């Protein structure tokens, strides 16, 4: 095939004529033809104006011929075979708009008039007109475009040159379009995926409509009034929609399931939420309606409404189930679908053992049943009612691979676009895939990506959904930050150390490593499959380890409450593992429950060395993979959190080293080796932290600053009464002296300030010695604690 097109070829002229006539013109010709035939025949019969009647009939014949020519030839203008040039396979609408000389610009202008090219531009968020002026108007420059067209046609399933393919070729060969793609973080092959998406949709449109049986189809089957009431007829839904126009991931399993059903076996589909179990059943229903399996031809798949059925209880429920099964047997063309089948087996108030009814039905092969289970539910059924579980033939509905997931999500997007009347861009689809993978681990693909897109609908700006809407949906529903840091936040991140030091005295290295981790996480540099940062803080008590975690939660995460604090001394027994991983709402010590509620937080594991080794082994997974799995097998993500573990181990060594050397430079490694050697930490745990940070004891000057920071807190409280408090130098020295304990560091400081400063201020306020606008100056004499 030659790299050129002939805009004057016969096929091109036919395409232009078809374009001029159009569907409206063709319909008008048909109406004129029919009208003229009636009028002409009447006039001839009446013997009036016979010449006019003949002329009218002549025109009617010409109109009819033009109508048929348009209807069966000009509208499609079939490809010219054998193909010699590209115009032989060019889609007629596009060919009709092609004008010589063909340059990248004129070809682009012709392409963007067609819906296929607009599909490409819209889903790439590209303004077609803005690209026009940047394109070359030189005929010679089309050579590279035609080469690209050839490459795409060769990989295309349908050798047809439509406007989408031409537009994509121009985009892939235009430097301006390339830079647009780069700005939108799209690689050329990802842009090419939009072309695959388009071609799949064109394939659905061009595929012959399935035939689902005529008017007498169901006359040999019985009536099912109870099933109509308590179920949803999936086959009827498929029939009304005219057949599914989407990619079916587990198509290869359909024949096996149909064979099992035709032998009378119940089928249990086992797959995580979102893998497409219900979609698979819709696919099966369509296949049976098409008559693909003679023994199950025209069978109807009816999904039982569990919530409606289970609103009955006891004997009523038993009677209802017997009626439903009885109707299915009597009708002779029913397959029952139990979605979330575990609901039917759960024991609750007023419930009865469904297996007593279901087991004989399954054993006798009376009713054809498909039941869907999550892997956990299936394990429960096997453990609790093994006889029922063993009666089912099992089919695993696994998560599809990435390529198939994209196909399913893209097809679903077309439906969502119609339903919500908006355009969902390809970058939104890609972002939904990425973020749902990261933050919706309790569900499986493709369901979670589709759910995320639906959740993002309210955040779409105008009629277009971009990646921003997806990010916003994740931020709102999951409480994490995923969008790029805006200017104020970026500024704050760049100066995070300063903000933390407003609350935190010294420990510069610790503050710096934590701030750097957060910057890496927010800039998207950190590994997304691990926590934002993980640190082991070692040092004596009362030097600011916990305070740093608290400051970080307050300064960056917005609130001190954004900190999940676990005292690991409460997890010293092997059975505490269950408590840590519990998912029940009554357990307020469950780490997984807390992280699911606020995934964007600081996780503080205090006194980690006191936890049981089994718990420490669990933490290895958390630090390594950024997730833990609960007792039901569902993962909980720590990938948006900062993990801080604190320990007093080695505190004496730190104090002694500071006394000897004056600082802790290069002391981390020897200390860690010593602690590992002493068996206080396992090397695999220590090595999994991003950093081990040593906290040194505070000196007197720093303790004075701590006291001043705490005094600032007191002043903040008093600001509501317009009163301020100050300490004389001697008073400050006394507080520093009283507030420092060699064993507990600065920990007693807060209590001392409360006992001295706050008490003294309270007395002065009550004695009305402090008026709004005044400053209370406290000296040593004022600071006598009331309990002394």
């Amino acid at each position, binding site marked *: 095939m030659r790299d050129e097109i002939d805009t004057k070829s016969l096929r091109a002229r036919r395409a232009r004529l078809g374009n001029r006539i159009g569907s409206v013109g063709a319909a008008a010709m048909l109406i004129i033809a029919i009208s003229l035939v009636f009028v002409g025949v009447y006039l001839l019969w009446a013997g009036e104006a016979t010449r006019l009647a003949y002329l009218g009939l*002549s025109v009617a*014949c010409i109109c009819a011929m033009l109508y048929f020519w348009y209807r069966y030839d000009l509208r499609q203008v079939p490809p010219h075979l054998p193909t010699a040039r590209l115009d032989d396979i060019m889609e007629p609408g596009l060919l009709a708009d092609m004008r010589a000389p063909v340059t990248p610009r004129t070809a682009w202008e012709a392409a963007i008039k067609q819906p296929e090219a607009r599909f490409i531009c819209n889903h790439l968020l590209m303004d077609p007109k803005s690209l026009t002026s940047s394109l070359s108007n030189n005929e010679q420059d089309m050579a590279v475009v035609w080469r690209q067209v050839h490459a795409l046609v060769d990989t295309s399933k349908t050798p047809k040159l439509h406007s989408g393919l031409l537009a994509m070729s121009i985009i892939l060969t235009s430097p301006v379009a390339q830079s647009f793609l780069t700005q939108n973080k799209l690689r050329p092959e990802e842009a090419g995926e939009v072309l695959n998406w388009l071609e799949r949709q064109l394939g659905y449109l061009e595929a012959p409509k399935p035939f689902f049986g005529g008017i007498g189809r169901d006359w*040999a089957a019985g009536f099912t009034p109870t099933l109509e009431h308590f179920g949803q007829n999936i086959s009827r839904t498929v029939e009304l929609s005219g057949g599914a126009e989407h990619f079916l991931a587990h198509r290869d399993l359909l024949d096996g399931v149909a064979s099992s059903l035709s032998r009378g076996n119940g089928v249990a589909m086992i797959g995580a939420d979102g893998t497409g179990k219900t979609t698979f059943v819709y696919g099966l229903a369509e296949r049976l309606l098409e008559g693909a399996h003679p023994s199950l031809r025209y069978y109807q798949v009816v999904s039982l409404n569990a919530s409606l059925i289970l609103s009955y209880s006891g004997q009523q429920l038993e009677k209802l189930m017997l009626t439903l099964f009885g109707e299915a047997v009597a009708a002779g063309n029913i397959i029952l679908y139990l979605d979330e089948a575990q609901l039917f087996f759960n024991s609750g108030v007023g419930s009865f053992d469904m297996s007593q009814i279901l087991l004989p039905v399954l054993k006798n092969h009376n009713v054809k049943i498909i039941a869907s289970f999550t892997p956990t539910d299936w394990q429960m059924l096997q453990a609790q009612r093994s006889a029922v579980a063993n009666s089912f033939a099992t089919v695993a509905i696994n998560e599809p691979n990435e390529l198939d997931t994209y196909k399913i999500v893209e097809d679903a997007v077309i439906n969502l676009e119609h339903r919500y009347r908006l355009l969902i861009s390809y970058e939104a689809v890609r972002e939904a895939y990425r973020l749902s993978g990261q933050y919706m681990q309790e569900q499986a693909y493709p369901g979670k990506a589709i759910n995320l897109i639906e959740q993002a609908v309210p955040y779409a700006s105008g009629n277009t959904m971009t990646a921003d809407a997806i990010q916003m949906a994740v931020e709102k529903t999951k409480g994490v930050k995923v969008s790029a840091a805006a200017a104020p936040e970026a500024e704050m991140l760049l100066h995070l150390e300063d903000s933390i030091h407003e609350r935190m005295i010294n420990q510069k290295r610790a503050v710096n490593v934590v701030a750097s981790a957060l910057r890496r996480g927010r800039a998207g540099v950190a590994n997304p499959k691990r926590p934002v940062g993980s640190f082991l803080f070692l040092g004596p008590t009362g030097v600011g380890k916990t305070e740093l975690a608290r400051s970080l939660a307050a300064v960056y995460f917005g609130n001190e409450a954004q900190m999940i604090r676990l005292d690991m001394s409460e997890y010293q027994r092997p059975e505490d593992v269950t408590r840590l991983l519990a998912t029940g709402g009554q357990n307020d010590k469950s780490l997984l429950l807390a992280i699911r509620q606020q995934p964007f937080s600081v996780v503080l594991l205090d006194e980690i060395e006191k936890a049981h080794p089994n718990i420490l082994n669990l933490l290895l997974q958390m630090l390594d993979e950024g997730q833990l799995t609960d007792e039901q097998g569902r993962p909980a993500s720590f990938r948006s959190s900062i993990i801080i573990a604190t320990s007093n181990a080695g505190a004496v060594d730190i104090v002694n080293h500071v006394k000897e050397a004056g600082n802790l430079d290069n002391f981390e490694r020897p200390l860690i080796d010593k602690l590992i050697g002493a068996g206080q930490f396992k090397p695999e745990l220590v090595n999994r932290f991003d950093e081990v940070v040593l906290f040194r004891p505070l000196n007197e000057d720093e303790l004075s600053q701590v006291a001043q920071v705490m005094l600032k807190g007191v002043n903040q409280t008093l600001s509501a009464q317009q009163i301020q408090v100050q300490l004389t130098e001697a008073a400050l020295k006394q507080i520093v002296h009283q507030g420092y304990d060699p064993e507990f560091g600065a920990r007693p400081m807060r209590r001392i300030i409360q006992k001295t400063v706050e008490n003294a201020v309270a007395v002065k306020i009550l004695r009305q010695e402090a008026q709004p606008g005044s400053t209370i100056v406290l000296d040593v004499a004022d600071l006598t604690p009331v309990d002394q």
Partner: protein
Amino acid sequence: MGYNTDMIIEMLRWWYGTGWLQATHRVGTWTKGVERAFSITLLLQTLFAPWRRIISAPGRSFDDKIRAALDNFVSRCVGFFVRIGVLIAACLALLGALIGSLIIVGIWPLLPVGAIFFLIRGIIG
């Protein structure tokens, strides 16, 4: 002028070639469409089946057996008459589709000739 002549020739070439062939194919398409819409094969296969599977289970006593047989006979009669009624309608539709499509196939080659004939009659009176 050359353009119009080319297009007229192109239309006539299609009309007496692919177009006419397609028209003959439509005879089969239309009749098959009627057969499918009325599910004629299925109706013939189930012509004597009970109407919507409304059947009575035979009891133990002779009277019950007779009553059940009578009920089932009635159900089969209802099914038969409904289906035969639809089959008659289907036959009529099939006939209509066949005649209609054959008329088109027959008239198809005459249409261009008719246009010229009526034009000449219109001019010369």
